[in-house]
């Protein structure tokens, strides 16, 4: 085991680290050693690393100032391999593990010798808040270059450039009581709730539960507080309905007590998640909790004081010093000066004194501090300078001294002579801000309390607040408050608190704190050395003063103009101080100046954890038909429609798509082809009012459709625009089988339910989706009948089984409903069988179909064949602004229907009556080999002069093997009046194509082929 000497600031004993488990790690290329139980920050301090980063705007050297989520400076880049890079890791929250590699996120060529630092020192003076709004404007052409430079300078860490090797997941949880924060209040609350039989979740963001109890000087029930923590956790671990989640941050508090808890499962172990019993484990898990009651026990963040050069490494928050000494056995310096406005911070000096290192002085802003800790400090002979504060620190890369002066807080001025104290560490404390962030997420405004000089959470339904966040600062108060919170939360759940006993603690008497935020300097604010309010964003008191003087008087304006609180720490250290500075500049109180709304996340969360397992094939369902395996086996290329995977075309050998589609088309026109039509939506409709209902939803009449017959129908929204179409068969007097478009199925069923449930509940009709139940195989082509005849005993004669009839029978021994409908214009039968037996029938078709050259075809061929017939595809030939009349489908509009069907009224509105609306036409390119581009815009003038008026666009366009030329469907202004005219299509490549306006029905206009 290496000697502590290799870690100059490490104490020989005490602390919660495991000296028997040394860990090696690297920072900026240098190798160091720490111990299990260290955070990266405590290990760096143990090794005497002062400079961890350069600042964002002025490139000043920065060191570690805090010990938790509020740390603004120690934002580092982690990861050895490219794929394992993690930007912007907060060293104070990163557990140390063996082999950890960290680098500063800024600083060039190296963090403590950065050239930008020079720029910062000189340029800083010319870079006040919002300076970039005032410059880089001329010449305009230069802005892109300026911007490039600005972008390079900005940003903290860097994103990895390779895919994340890790996975993340989600778990949904429900509980009676969610306790956030496992400090004294949280533990007391969880224990009481757990003992009372409630379903409890206790989460805490730190590596270990216990919060302030892990480094307090106080004892509970006569034992070290940490021992009590262990007892409580052990008991809770034994309760079935209690879930303990360490390393878990409540990062978002959403409506109706929905809270997201981010559990870091492996980030403390390695760069990427190691296997666990040979199985993958997730790097992080998001617990999505719906809680009956939420107990916020999130404690407080200590506010540093704001004084000149308060960013030189060695300036720290007082409480952090105690944490490093007592929890990590690290003393972050040799000679301490403590500047405080309150008693509580005296702990830092006492803890420092305990280690045998020198406490130069405690500088207390109050005239007559008293209280137990003050007394103890005095009794130890520590020098206490009252009525004073540190107004400036000296030093370049580490504090070398502190300027101390007596100050007049009310008058905000230095009132006495200045003394310089030699020291290497300045701890400061301006009081304690309740951690109100989560409560603010749901929109509750925090409320200011003068007695504690801080904001407490606003009221949220179902939320109970306990401990420091509730202004109960002392250990005794916090424990009691936790108990009370638990009984309130339990009561709200209809449960009774049981076995809640208040542990015994000795109350420490503390004097009243002084209201000190930023410290006056000898020079006026604008001229004094920089006094940093928000260290991460380099926001200074001068910046805030400038903003308010320029008229940015709302705190939101101040924030946005100066970037106060916009860092990755969301201003946990700086916001209140910033508000105090703004308030002073504006001559207001802090509550008048108002607070800012905190947003999720409490601390940043990886995208991966929020996305969970919903990526790649699990990003969104892929839906398959029962015949999918066959399609794959036969080399189908697939097109995605809705979520369905549909065969697009079936290339043979090295056929191109064009060749394959031409072959498939010919097969259908000349012999027989088959399409897997299973993805079309199918809705079964039963009830004596089914017919009436159809008449109200479809644009065309349904009163006289006989049993055994099918009919095509158009569905509109009530604005008259086409929303869906399909064929519906009359199975029985009160029984119909409706088909919809593939993408529209769910929407149409919901549409039917909507009208039935909310407008016409009196109609006796029921609907249900049978899309997945049936498989539909559409055999198309002159030989369709011959083929089907070989597999069925049905009478297929044209007399007894006419076009638009349906019949029942068996196909290949499987009971089937066969619909004689056609989307190709050919003789066609759509065979519907129960999906489980579909593969058998499909294979039987190919067995018998071989002699006819039965050809499987996909959606592309289907599109060509239907377009040759002028059949529309809703969603391709329509776009939500097209009426049945625009499509020339007046034959499908029941003008005389007694009931004003959905969409009817809209057809008589001024705009839908216009003659010059866009209407469906066919286009025949003058160059017969040409296939127009789908989406090409149509103009009426040959010569191009931009901008020029457009008359419509091409919706569908293909090459037709049977016609021997390209053809298209288009929507064209006043198209019905333009038959025979020539229109033009100017393309991106500068070519202007010409086409003749023709009927959209290109093939077999009389429809003889489907009636044979």
């Amino acid at each position, binding site marked *: 085991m290496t000697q502590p000497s290799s870690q100059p600031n490490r104490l020989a004993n005490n602390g919660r680290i495991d000296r028997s488990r040394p860990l090696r790690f690297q920072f900026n290329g240098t190798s160091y050693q720490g111990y299990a139980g260290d955070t990266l920050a405590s290990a760096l301090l143990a090794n005497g690393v002062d400079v961890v980063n350069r600042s964002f705007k002025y490139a000043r050297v920065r060191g570690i100032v805090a010990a938790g989520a509020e740390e603004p400076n120690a934002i580092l880049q982690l990861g050895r391999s490219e794929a394992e*890079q*993690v930007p912007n890791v907060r060293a104070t929250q990163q557990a140390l593990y063996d082999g950890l590699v960290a680098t500063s996120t800024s600083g060039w060529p190296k963090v403590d010798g950065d050239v930008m630092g020079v720029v910062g020192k000189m340029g800083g003076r*010319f870079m*006040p808040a919002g300076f*970039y*709004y005032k*410059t880089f*404007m001329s010449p305009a052409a230069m*802005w892109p270059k300026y911007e490039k430079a600005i*972008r390079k300078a*900005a*940003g*903290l*860490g*860097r994103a*990895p*450039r390779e*895919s994340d090797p*890790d996975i993340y997941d989600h778990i949904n949880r429900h509980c009676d009581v969610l306790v956030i924060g496992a400090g004294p209040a949280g533990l007391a609350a969880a224990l009481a709730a757990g003992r009372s039989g409630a379903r409890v979740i206790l989460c805490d963001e730190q590596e270990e539960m216990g919060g302030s109890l892990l480094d307090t000087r106080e004892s509970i029930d006569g034992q070290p507080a940490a021992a009590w923590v262990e007892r409580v956790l052990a008991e809770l671990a034994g309760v079935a309905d209690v879930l303990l989640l360490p390393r878990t941050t409540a990062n978002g508090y959403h*409506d109706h007590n*929905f809270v997201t808890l981010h559990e870091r499962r492996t980030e403390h172990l390695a760069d990427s998640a190691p296997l666990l019993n040979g199985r993958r484990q997730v790097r992080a898990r998001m617990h999505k909790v719906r809680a009956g009651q939420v107990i916020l026990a999130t404690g407080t963040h200590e506010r540093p004081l704001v004084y000149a050069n308060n960013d030189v490494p060695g300036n720290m928050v007082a409480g952090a010093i105690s944490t490093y000494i007592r929890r990590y056995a690290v003393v972050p310096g040799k000679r301490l000066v403590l500047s405080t406005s309150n008693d509580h911070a005296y702990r830092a000096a006492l803890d420092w004194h305990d280690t045998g290192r020198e406490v130069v002085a405690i500088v207390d802003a109050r005239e007559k501090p008293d209280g137990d800790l003050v007394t103890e400090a005095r009794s130890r002979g520590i020098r206490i300078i009252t009525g004073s504060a540190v107004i400036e620190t000296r030093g370049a890369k580490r504090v070398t001294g502190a300027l101390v002066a007596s100050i007049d807080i009310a008058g905000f001025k230095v009132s006495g002579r200045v003394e310089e104290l030699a020291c290497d560490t300045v701890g400061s404390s301006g009081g304690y801000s309740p951690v109100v962030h989560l409560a603010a*997420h749901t*929109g509750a405004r925090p409320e200011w309390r003068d007695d504690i000089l801080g904001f407490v959470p606003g009221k949220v339904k179902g939320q109970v607040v306990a401990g420091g966040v509730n202004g109960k600062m002392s250990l005794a108060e916090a424990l009691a408050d936790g108990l009370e919170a638990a009984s309130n939360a339990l009561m709200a759940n209809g449960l009774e608190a049981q076995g809640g006993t208040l542990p015994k603690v000795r109350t420490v008497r503390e004097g009243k704190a002084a209201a000190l935020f930023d410290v006056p300097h000898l020079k006026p604010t*604008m001229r004094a050395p920089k006094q940093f309010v928000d260290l991460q964003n380099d926001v200074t008191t001068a910046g805030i003063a400038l903003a308010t003087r*320029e*008229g940015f*008087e*709302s705190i*939101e*304006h101040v924030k*946005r103009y100066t970037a106060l609180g916009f860092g*990755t720490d969301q201003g946990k250290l700086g916001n209140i101080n910033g508000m105090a500075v703004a308030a002073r500049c504006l001559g207001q109180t802090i509550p008048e100046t108002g607070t800012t709304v905190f*947003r999720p*996340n409490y601390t*940043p969360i*990886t*995208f*991966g954890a929020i*996305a*969970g397992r919903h*990526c*790649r094939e699990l*990003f969104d369902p892929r839906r398959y038909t029962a015949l999918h395996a066959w399609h794959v086996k036969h080399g189908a290329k697939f097109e*995605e429609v809705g979520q369905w995977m549909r065969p697009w075309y079936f290339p043979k050998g090295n056929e191109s798509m064009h060749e394959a589609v031409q072959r498939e088309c010919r097969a259908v026109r000349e012999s027989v082809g088959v399409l897997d039509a299973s993805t079309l939506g199918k809705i079964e409709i039963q009830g004596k009012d089914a017919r009436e209902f159809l008449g109200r939803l479809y644009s065309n009449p349904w009163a006289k459709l006989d049993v055994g017959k099918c009919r095509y129908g158009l569905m509109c929204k009530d604005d008259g625009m086409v929303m869906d179409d399909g064929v519906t068969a009359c199975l029985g007097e009160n029984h119909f089988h409706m088909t919809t478009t593939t993408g529209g199925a769910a929407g149409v069923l919901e549409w039917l339910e909507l009208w039935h449930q909310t407008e016409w509940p009196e109609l006796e009709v029921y609907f249900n989706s049978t899309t997945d139940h049936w498989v539909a195989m559409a055999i198309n082509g002159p030989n369709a009948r011959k083929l089907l005849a070989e597999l069925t005993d049905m009478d297929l004669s044209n007399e007894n089984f006419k076009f638009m009839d349906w019949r029942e029978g068996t196909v290949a021994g499987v009971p089937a409903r066969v619909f004689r409908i056609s989307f190709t214009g050919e003789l066609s039968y759509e065979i519907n069988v129960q999906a489980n037996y579909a593969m058998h029938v499909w294979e039987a078709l190919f067995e018998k179909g071989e002699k006819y050259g039965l050809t499987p075809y996909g959606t592309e061929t289907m599109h060509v064949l239907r377009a040759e017939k002028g059949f529309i595809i809703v969603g*391709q030939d329509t*776009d*939500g602004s097209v009426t049945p009349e625009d499509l020339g489908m007046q034959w499908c509009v029941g003008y005389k229907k007694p009931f004003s069907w959905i969409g009817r009224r809209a057809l008589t*509105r001024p*705009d*839908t009556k216009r003659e010059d609306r866009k209407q469906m036409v066919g286009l025949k390119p003058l160059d017969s080999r040409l296939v127009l*581009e*789908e*989406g090409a*815009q149509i*103009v009426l003038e040959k010569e191009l002069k*931009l*901008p020029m008026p*457009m008359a419509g*666009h091409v919706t569908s366009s293909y090459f037709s093997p049977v016609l021997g030329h390209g053809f298209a469907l288009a929507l064209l202004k006043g198209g019905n009046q333009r038959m025979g005219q020539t229109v033009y299509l100017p393309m*991106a490549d500068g070519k202007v194509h010409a086409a003749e306006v023709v009927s959209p029905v290109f093939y077999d206009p009389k429809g003889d082929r489907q009636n044979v």
Partner: protein
Amino acid sequence: MQHYSGFELVKHGLSHHENWQRVWRNPEPRSQYDIIIVGGGGHGLATAYYLAKEHGITNVAVVEKGWLGGGNTARNTTIVRSNYLWDEAAWLYEHAMKLWEGLSQDLNYNVMFSQRGVMNLGHTLQDMRDINRRVNANRLNGIDGEVLDVKQIQEIVPLMDCSRNTRYPVLGASWQPRAGVARHDAVAWGFARAADALGVHLLQRTEVTGIRTSGGKVLGVETSRGFIGAKTVGVVTAGNSGVLAKMAGIRLPIESHPLQALVSEPMKPVLDTVVMSNHVHGYISQSDKGDLVIGAGIDGYNGYGQRGSYPTIEHTLQAIVELFPAFSRVRMNRQWGGIVDTTPDACPIISATPVGGLFFNCGWGTGGFKATPGSGNVFAATLANGKAHPLAAPFSIDRFISGKLIDEHGAAGVAH
């Protein structure tokens, strides 16, 4: 108006920045103005600026209940583009685009308009048909745009997964090079500063509590600071249009929804353009500060809460990680919500109302920020002349009666 420039920065630096003047005043309201604009967001401030600059009307008050630019101007994802499908929309947004291109100089305020291009991805054959249709229409309207294939996309956005392994592989994209992003707050502040300099009164913390009318004509507005008169009142209160309309006894074809957005932690430059995908519902760019700025579609329910539902954030980041697997380890810093006033055809309403002298400019849905200068410019003309600017005419509220909608929900369907 105090001139801004690099030279001025240096000069003021030498005097410790103690001599910068106010960017705008805090005047006492007059009892009567020529024109009152309700709403001190980007659109309202731009309207005031162009009223003063182009129409010489300076006796104008902008009445704002909170702080200038505190609504959606401060909450959007700063995307600026003009590649809309339908002529009327394309013309309006292109009018805005041309104003954007000289705005920093015009206002002497750097709004950081960055023409880094906007890409709309296509993932299905129908997506590509729609993209072709829109780009062809844009070209014939004199708006820049092209269709990119996967290889070209990959060159512009190297980190994007253009392989076939994604759930919805990228098939192509539309690309508008002149489009980009701008610094949202600066737009409001720049217009405010310039309008103030021309004599416009910016009345912050002044809430309109009623609209006073008589004989079907507007007389002025009741406010938290008393009645303020004007014969012409323009309402530009995105996220509150319905509330204001109610005061005037008017109904609007508008529903207000939460629109959420989020940012990552700041990082070194990694994405140099704006990528949008309607199919997987996510869009992303990187701010000059280094944050990835991300958004998606609106939440389904009506809401004025400036926050939305968590699943929307989940789906958005699933889409982003699907497109950029390398961003899986990047961390989300902050999320928030704006309130967008949506119309049935996803196009704005710039219109007179049944109340004489009362005009509304609202319903910009998710597309408001990019239109800011254009919206203000045509609305100013409409208020100044008492009748619709030609580019604004098609956006009259009457279209919801006649049925002459401009359906950007249709083939264009491109949000934001």
